[in-house]
């Protein structure tokens, strides 16, 4: 027993967590006694300190800091890769430094929170199926949509992209791992911690946080203690995101295989490079906004209290300065995934590769100039509205370039319309719609009317569900054989796609209408006139939710007993497909050598990279590579 607690792992994590709680109680009561505050034991104070400190004890217990602390204390450290690679399923529940293990950990944890957050959406839609109260009181309802959005943004979309990239990117650039494998492990472990914290908020007195995922002050400052779970969980999720982005930037800049210039990188690498720039620059701002809320709440500061000289609008500026780039953080990796899927399944180079790369960088740059379009009716000075409208509208241009380039990639290709391709083409259509409603929203006179209505809910779900989630599904299906060594069931994949596509549109398209007609968002009840559409939307959403179970079944069953996959089932040129499925623990026996672009389909004998034994492993592009039809 004692040895179990001394080793890094769950027993020690539990012990350290308990120790952490004890330390927080001691700290709180000790300080309160020293300052003569009564009562000495204050549950809220203990909780506040615990939310900040206990996670760090947990991370220490599970083993994230062992190596660094050992090294920092001057003791000898052994680099034996004992914690690298998964030999059994148990390794996935430990601190592991292998990017492939971490990638799968990220993906599985993210999907867990997707299902939990999705379930909350089902409860939201159940309540909204008819006017009047159905199942939950307003406070619970407000909590449900707040936790739904927060989980899906911070615990699903952002980390699942990090997970897919974690797995694929080092392989794709011919690297043996990420630049900082131990930091990578720490980044992962901060994530389930953040998610659990958010879910625990439902147990807090006064209920879960319920001020929306946007947590505007003063509502979030005045809210009960459940709000603090959001304030602090977001810090850990943010720290996880920043550390990962740092890792990606250093890895991409310094660890590309010889011959892989920036313009020979696959677009997934460009996309993650761009996203990582966004993350490192922007994420500290949401941390700042939440720290200010925390200080106002816990220590009586006046950041957002006008009576004390504070400024309510400042919260929104600081918050949205991150949260607008956040939506690009939630989309750009998806753009990269679509480029990979389309090129491989259309057997054609991505059209306009350089502009595709530059448009990513343009979106990064422009993404920092548009935050106040979330604040058009906030009461900020009127003159800010026109410049922000202009910059917001301008972003449509690089985005449009990408959409047109993807369609041009399909043109005259040889299109295999399998599951990943269905998701990719479905994405193009849905994201175009979401982008169009976005341009409409950029136009201030219209936005003044539809701000904070169901039109916004429609827009965000077209770009996040029809956009991001469709690309996530495309990527998961596409790289499933590589990650698991098995093929998924293609028929179930197609059924999953079609059910999702149809019921997604039936759920969210009508929301454009009811928003313009006058239904606000974040309401547990609504006027009679919206009853019919809400019922239609709710029923569609239930079927949409059920369709995700087909995906879950397919993934689990195929992982356990699907047919074994070859190293390159899609006959792709990029490096990750030139090693076994799943890849060897250290990826490559010898560092690959990149000799050409990543999308040289249609050129007989073209090679992107030489991996392993040159005589054995050369994979030319397409046997008979001229187009078979005109």
């Amino acid at each position: 027993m004692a040895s179990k607690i001394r080793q890094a792992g769950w027993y020690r994590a539990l012990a350290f967590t308990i120790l952490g709680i004890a330390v927080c109680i001691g700290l709180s009561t000790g300080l309160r006694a020293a300052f003569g505050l009564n009562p000495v034991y204050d549950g809220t104070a203990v909780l506040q300190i615990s939310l900040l400190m206990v996670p760090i004890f947990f991370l220490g217990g599970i083993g994230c800091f062992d190596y660094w602390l050992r090294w920092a204390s001057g003791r000898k450290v052994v680099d034996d890769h004992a914690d690298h690679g998964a030999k059994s399923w148990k390794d996935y529940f430990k601190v592991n430094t292998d990017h492939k293990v971490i990638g799968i950990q990220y993906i599985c944890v993210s999907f867990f929170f997707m299902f939990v957050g999705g379930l909350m959406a089902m409860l939201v839609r159940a309540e909204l199926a008819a006017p009047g109260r159905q199942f939950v009181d307003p406070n619970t309802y407000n909590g449900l949509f707040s936790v739904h959005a927060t989980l899906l943004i911070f615990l699903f979309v952002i980390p699942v992209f990090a997970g897919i990239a974690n797995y694929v990117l080092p392989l794709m650039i011919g690297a043996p791992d990420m630049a900082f494998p131990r930091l990578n492990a720490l980044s992962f472990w901060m994530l389930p911690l953040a998610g659990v914290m958010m879910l625990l908020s439902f147990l807090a007195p006064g209920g879960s946080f319920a001020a929306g995922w946007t947590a505007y002050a003063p509502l979030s400052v005045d809210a009960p203690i459940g709000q603090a779970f959001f304030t602090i969980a977001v810090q850990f999720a943010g720290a996880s995101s920043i550390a990962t982005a740092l890792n990606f930037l250093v890895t991409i800049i310094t660890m590309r295989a010889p011959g892989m210039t920036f313009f020979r990188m696959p677009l997934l690498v460009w996309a993650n490079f761009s996203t990582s720039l966004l993350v490192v620059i922007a994420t500290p701002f949401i941390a700042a906004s939440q720290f200010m809320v925390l200080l106002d709440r816990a220590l009586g500061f006046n950041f957002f209290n006008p009576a004390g000289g504070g400024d309510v609008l400042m919260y929104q500026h600081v918050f949205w300065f991150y949260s607008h780039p956040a939506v690009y953080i939630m989309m750009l990796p998806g753009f990269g995934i679509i480029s990979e899927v389309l090129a491989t399944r259309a057997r054609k180079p991505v059209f306009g590769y350089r502009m595709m790369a530059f448009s990513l960088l343009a979106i990064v740059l422009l993404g920092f100039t548009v935050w106040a379009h979330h604040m058009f009716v906030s009461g900020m000075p009127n003159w800010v509205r026109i410049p922000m409208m202009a910059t917001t509208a301008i972003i449509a241009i690089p985005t449009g370039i990408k959409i047109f380039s993807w369609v041009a990639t399909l043109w005259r290709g040889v299109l295999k319309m399998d599951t990943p391709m269905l998701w990719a083409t479905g994405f193009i259509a849905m994201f175009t719609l979401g982008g169009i409603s976005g341009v409409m929203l950029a136009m201030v006179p219209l936005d003044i009317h539809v701000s904070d209505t169901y039109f916004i809910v429609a827009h965000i779900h077209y770009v996040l569900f029809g956009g991001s989630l469709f690309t996530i599904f495309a990527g998961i299906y596409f790289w499933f054989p590589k990650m698991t060594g098995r093929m998924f069931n293609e028929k179930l994949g197609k059924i999953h796609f079609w059910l999702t596509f149809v019921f997604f549109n039936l759920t969210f398209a009508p929301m454009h209408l009811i928003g313009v007609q006058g239904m606000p968002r974040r309401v547990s009840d609504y006027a009679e006139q919206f009853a019919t559409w809400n019922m239609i939307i709710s029923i569609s959403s239930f079927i949409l939710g059920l369709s995700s179970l087909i995906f879950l079944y397919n993934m689990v069953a195929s992982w356990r007993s699907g047919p074994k996959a070859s190293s390159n089932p899609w006959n792709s040129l990029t490096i990750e497909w030139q090693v076994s499925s799943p890849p060897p623990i250290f990826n490559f026996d010898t560092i690959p050598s990149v000799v050409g672009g990543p999308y040289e389909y249609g050129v007989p004998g073209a090679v992107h990279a030489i991996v392993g034994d040159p005589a054995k492993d050369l994979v030319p592009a397409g046997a008979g590579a001229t187009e078979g039809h005109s």
Partner: protein
Amino acid sequence: MWVSLAAIIVVASAIGIGIMLAISWFPAQGSNVAPKIDTFWNVLIVVSVPIFVSVVTMMLFSIWRWRQRPGEEGLDGPPIHGSTKLEVIWTIIPTIIIAALSTYAAILLLDIQAAPAKGTRVVNVNGIQFAWNFETKTDAGPVKSNLLYLPVNEPVTFDIRSKDVIHAFWVPAFRMQVDAVPGITTSYSLTPTKVGSFDIVCAELCGLGHAYMRSTVTVLPPARYKAVMAGLAHASAAVGGSK
């Protein structure tokens, strides 16, 4: 091929625009701003539908025409890397569209946010959790009430405040909305143009009662308005102007 594609796009766009314009999107046009916003919306639809239709048509056509047929499993497409001409076209045309829409929107915005004429009636709007309070100065004295009354065809400026959390004062029929923010006074001006009763909706999450923070604005002919306000002024004075 190009002619048929163009024809499909034109016909589908026409049908799409027709359907979209036929839908009754907006509530009643209750203010002078409403027709301008509704027209702008129609313009946005006319511009947006062809863009969506073009993208989807080209994509579906490609899938239909160049789907992998049996026997083509090992084949690649032609190594087309790009076309500068196409890139220029599909950068310039969207830029023009965006510039045009933004210019229209900017002019419209300057119009609807223009400062009101001197002497415009001011209604003070106070949002609290979870109700709206309105205060109007009338010749018969100040009128305080939870329901809003306005005379038709007379400009009004709303000065909007909140003492607790952020709310948003939205009258869908008027097409104008602005947040009620603790610490500042926000405002907008318009002219109600239609007699009737219209919903007032709080459009910013303000807590438990957000869904129920609703009221009604009743727009009356001027004579009727005077009479109603006189009665309310009397009542407000009687209760000491509380609320």
